[in-house]
């Protein structure tokens, strides 16, 4: 955590709403994107973001300074998303550890096939595919790649075993790889 953020956090904990506003500015875009990608609906995402920040503000005096504010905030927002979307909790729990061993290592030969121009098009196509991933996988992908959280942080955040998180991410990448193969066959 940056020194500046630490200072805002300290002031916000003492009831300084302006300092909390700075923390909101720092995190709101990421929090909004997390909610948007999890819920898939901009209106729901806005509601969750608003509710999440208000809850964070109310609970801030009890926040322990030794933990990461961002992870704490994500936990609040994620719980709100899961409350709105109970199926997601079940989908996350359904990602089992055992199946990881059955999944083959993905081939990374795609880069040899794609030219730079094609790579750009492929990227756009892949980004569309990311939105088509099942919600549970999309959430894990967002936490891993957008928010750059470690596997351990994600596991703690979504309350799942580490192996399950790895399986979910593996499956998401595999799904995208399959989509890329289909795309390559088409061009």
């Amino acid at each position, binding site marked *: 955590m940056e020194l500046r953020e630490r200072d805002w956090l300290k002031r916000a904990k003492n009831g300084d709403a302006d300092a909390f*506003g700075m923390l909101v500015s720092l995190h709101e875009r990421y929090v909004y994107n997390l909610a948007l990608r999890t819920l898939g609906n901009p209106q729901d995402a806005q509601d969750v973001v608003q509710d999440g920040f208000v809850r964070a503000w109310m609970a801030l005096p009890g926040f322990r300074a030794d933990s990461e504010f961002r992870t704490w905030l994500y936990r609040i927002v994620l719980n709100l998303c899961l409350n709105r979307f109970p199926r997601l909790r079940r989908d996350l729990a359904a990602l089992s550890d055992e199946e990881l061993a059955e999944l083959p290592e993905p081939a990374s030969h795609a880069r040899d096939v794609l030219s730079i121009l094609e790579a750009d098009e492929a990227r756009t196509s892949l980004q569309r595919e990311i939105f088509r991933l099942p919600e549970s996988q999309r959430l894990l992908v967002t936490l891993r790649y957008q928010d750059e959280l470690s596997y351990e942080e994600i596991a703690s955040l979504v309350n799942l075993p580490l192996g399950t998180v790895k399986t979910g991410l593996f499956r998401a990448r595999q799904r995208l790889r399959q989509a890329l193969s289909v795309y390559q066959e088409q061009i």
Partner: protein
Amino acid sequence: MKIDEFDPIENALRNQPLAELPAGLHRRVMSHVRLTRQAQRFQIGWIDLAVSLFFGLLPVLIAFGWKSLPREAGLYLNYYWMVFQSMNLEPLVWLAILAGLLSLVLMFAASLRLSLQPPLRSE
């Protein structure tokens, strides 16, 4: 995790564009935050109600308990009260009363300090 920058999958995942924040969201969030803070300062929790109910009912409970005591128990208590009076423990009783009053004053001061917190800087 090994990061392969040339792998199109990793590349697409890492470079997924962030959606723009909807206009006015920040303002809406902050206005809710400020309202919530103000409401929170004058909030009465269940613990406040429970404590006041307990202390409010305490004299009634004591009176009821005293009335419901069997006659023998009342006599026993009277006897021990007389023994206590004969022990000349008056200074000790005054000390206990003083300590009780002091803790009441301290609790009152603490509650006064909590309720008269300075207004938030942003308000």
